[in-house]
């Protein structure tokens, strides 16, 4: 009975979302205030029913209601409650429901905090968000109903895929979805602006904090996913250019371009059409990612159940949403006027370079992800490209961006300032070179590692140079507005990330060795002594647990316990054991038992053991988290607090009169 209530709640939410789309948008068109005023209550109503459905599905997991097919598929009696909780979004149907729930959280937030937006604009934004919710609710009900019954109910459920039974996976999907679903807000703002013909840059200011928060969440979500892959998959890798990873990375790249383009539009009125387009693209790529992952068009290690019917539905929805937006853009964008002209060495140019590189990278990643499909379509067979393609092209494209990065904050809007450039360039380059030389002296001898150290120092020193300059020149108390602080965190994050990514890649030592109990292997500067394997029981697994003592120059550093877990259905899952450190991780994972005495009595035999010394690997995620912090920080700037709309337009804190940033507009 209760699951049917969930189903009913979803149907009601679907109806409400249809109204949430239709009434406010129609009202805004006809200037009918009562219709526009329905938006807020419809949003709340829709949220309540989706939350109810989500709660009911969670409840079904908690009480182990195996008469619900989805629960029977993804849980069993032995699954601990916290994984039953995360199992709600452990597979397609539930994660779709999570998607809608998070969309509704965002919508609710816009409804709550956007009350001071112009009435029509507010109505349109909520209407557009309602349309997206409508599409996904329909998708859920039509093709992926989480409440489908399984009668007669089995005695026990199958299991949550053991790969997903990891703390990282409790957090990863919700945070990631907060990110890419969050781009729906920037999208809705852009569409609302296009619909209303309101192509001043004011909508951009209003949408900036939302975009920054979404981008921050997306950064954190990608970091969480990468960390999970590192600790759970047992290969010690942190990024695989897998289609599913790419699906979250493409919106991030475009989103990064978007937050910068928005800054230009907000402050200088420039790049307006481009900002509109990026806002559409960022969310379109989120939808596209959902399509790629859910339709089974591409196969991936994240093997979600593929169903052609689902593929057709999302493709249809994608075509309507993205196709419709792009047509709207084509029709309306000619009313968008350009901003002020700017000099070659101005901040605009540098941001534009960054934007260009980010967009081209996103396109490159998209192309690489779609190669297998292209191959089919052109009838030359399935071809796929791997990490070498992505890694190489990505580094190539990021080089100009990294070079331009420290100079963008240092340059001035509109004008070139050669003096600052020269001074900064001398110091930054000198520091970067010194860091490179020190690294070389400290025995980083591969050119790639040296490149990493120099590039990272270049970015960090460049950002610090700006922070110092600002400290000296700006009046006390106004030195670092939150928006600027966000930029500083974000750019420091990039520097830290570069160091982590490249140093891990060049300095990691990885060894697959066969070890008998008592045997020692020397990896990096450490001695790893294998002390055999024992058994260990978990809530729903039985593990062969190894003991590895790590010492450096005879002093004990840590004892690691890698496991090989066997779950109730016989699935085997490797749990790496990691000794984390600021300057590097020690990572041990257990392979297979070797030699004659294997199987249950394997405790006395030799085992294949993977031993890794991974310097600086944590810097990758630290960089990502700094970027997240940057996004949140920038969004909190009080510049973005909404005042009554006229007031907001009459005064521009950047010091540029509105009449200048909004030049002749209706020329078309």
């Amino acid at each position: 009975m209760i699951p049917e209530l969930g189903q009913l709640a979803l149907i009601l939410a679907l109806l409400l979302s249809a109204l949430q789309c239709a009434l406010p948008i129609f009202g805004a068109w006809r200037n009918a205030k009562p219709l526009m005023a329905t938006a807020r209550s419809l949003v709340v109503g829709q949220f309540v029913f989706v939350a109810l459905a989500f709660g009911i599905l969670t409840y079904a997991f908690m009480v182990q209601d195996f008469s619900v097919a989805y629960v029977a598929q993804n849980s069993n009696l032995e699954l601990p409650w916290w994984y039953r909780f995360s199992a709600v979004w452990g597979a397609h149907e539930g994660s779709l429901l999570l998607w809608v729930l998070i969309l509704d959280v965002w919508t609710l937030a816009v409804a709550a905090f956007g009350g001071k937006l112009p009435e029509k604009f507010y109505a349109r934004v909520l209407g557009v968000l309602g349309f997206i919710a409508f599409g996904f609710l329909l998708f859920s009900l039509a093709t992926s109903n989480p409440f489908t019954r399984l009668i007669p109910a089995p005695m026990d459920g199958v299991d949550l895929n053991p790969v997903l039974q990891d703390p990282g996976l409790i957090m990863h999907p919700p945070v990631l979805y907060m990110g890419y679903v969050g781009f729906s807000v920037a999208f809705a703002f852009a569409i609302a602006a296009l619909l209303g013909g309101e192509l001043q840059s004011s909508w951009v200011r209003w949408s900036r904090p939302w975009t920054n928060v979404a981008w921050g969440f997306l950064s954190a979500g990608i970091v969480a996913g990468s960390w999970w892959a590192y600790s759970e998959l047992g290969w010690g890798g942190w990024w695989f250019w897998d289609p599913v990873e790419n699906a979250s990375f493409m919106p991030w790249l475009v989103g990064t371009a978007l937050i910068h383009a928005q800054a230009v539009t907000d402050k200088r009125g420039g790049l307006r059409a481009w900002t509109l387009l990026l806002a559409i693209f960022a969310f379109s790529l989120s939808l596209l990612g959902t399509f790629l992952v859910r339709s089974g068009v591409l196969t991936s290690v994240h093997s979600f159940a593929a169903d052609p019917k689902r593929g057709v539905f999302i493709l249809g929805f994608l075509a309507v949403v993205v196709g419709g937006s792009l047509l709207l853009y084509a029709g309306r964008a000619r009313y968008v006027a350009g901003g002020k002209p700017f000099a070659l060495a101005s901040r605009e140019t540098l941001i534009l370079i960054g934007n260009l590189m980010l967009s081209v990278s996103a396109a490159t990643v998209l192309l690489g992800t779609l190669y297998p499909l292209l191959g089919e379509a052109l009838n030359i067979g399935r071809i796929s490209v791997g990490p070498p393609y992505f890694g190489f092209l990505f580094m190539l494209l990021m080089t100009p961006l990294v070079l331009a990065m420290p100079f963008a904050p240092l340059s001035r809007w509109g004008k070139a300032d050669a003096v600052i450039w020269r001074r900064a360039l001398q110091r930054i380059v000198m520091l970067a070179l010194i860091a490179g030389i020190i690294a070389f002296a400290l025995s980083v001898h591969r050119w790639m590692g040296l490149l990493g150290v120099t590039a990272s120092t270049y970015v960090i020193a460049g950002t610090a140079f700006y922070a110092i300059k600002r400290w000296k020149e700006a009046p006390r108390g106004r030195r670092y507005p939150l928006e600027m602080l966000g930029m500083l965190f974000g750019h420091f994050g990039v520097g830290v990330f570069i160091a982590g990514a490249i140093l891990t890649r060049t300095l990691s030592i990885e060894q697959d060795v066969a070890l008998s109990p008592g045997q020692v292997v020397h990896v990096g500067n450490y001695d790893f002594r294998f002390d055999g394997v024992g058994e260990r029981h978990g809530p729903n697994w039985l593990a062969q647990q190894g003991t590895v003592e790590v010492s450096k120059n005879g002093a004990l550093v840590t004892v690691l316990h890698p496991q090989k877990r066997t779950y109730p259905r016989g699935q085997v899952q490797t749990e790496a054991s990691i000794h984390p450190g600021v300057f590097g991780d020690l990572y041990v994972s257990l392979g297979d038992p070797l030699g004659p005495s294997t199987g249950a009595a394997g405790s006395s035999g030799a085992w294949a053991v993977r031993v890794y010394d991974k310097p600086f690997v944590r810097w990758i995620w630290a960089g990502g988290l700094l970027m997240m912090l940057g996004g949140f920080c920038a969004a909190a700037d009080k510049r973005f607090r909404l005042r009554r709309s006229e007031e907001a337009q009459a005064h521009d804190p950047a010091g540029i009169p509105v009449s200048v940033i909004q030049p002749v507009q209706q020329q078309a």
Partner: protein
Amino acid sequence: MNARLIPFAVFALLVVLFGVGIVWNEHHDARYVPSPLIGKAAPAFDLPRLETPSQHLRKADLLGKPYLINVFASWCFACGDEHPVLMAYAHRFGVPLIGYDYKDAPGDATAWLSQHGNPYAMVITDKQGQTAIDFGVYGAPETFLVDRQGVIRYKHIGPLTPEVIARELQPAIAKLNEVSR
């Protein structure tokens, strides 16, 4: 043409591509990788048997009668899905089903088979996966049909399902029998 329509045009092309992708997938197994080995002699192998590792099974031992080789491993999820199907169909194929335990610890494989049942006439083990390279094994599970001359006649990547068996495997076996008659 209006330059602002370019994004739309590019997107329209993408949608067409995805449409093609969906249609293609409905008619093909997405994991289908054409095997250059079909119609060619199966690679010679010489592998220890799971139950009695001292005994080896060679390709030459099997010449003269057709047989199926099913690549599996205790660590492979999809093999768990496939397993009940094999249990149900193994005796209906009309040819012996040989288990090919791929990159697996013998203890794990034995435990797995005793827990879930053993559909195989015999099981050979390839712990290092060396011979599997000769077979062009792409991932477990995979199934090869080898005829009496030792030539690979059919290959399936991914779990065998009742549909695949009815649509592809059984006709392929029937064809072998026709030819030999």
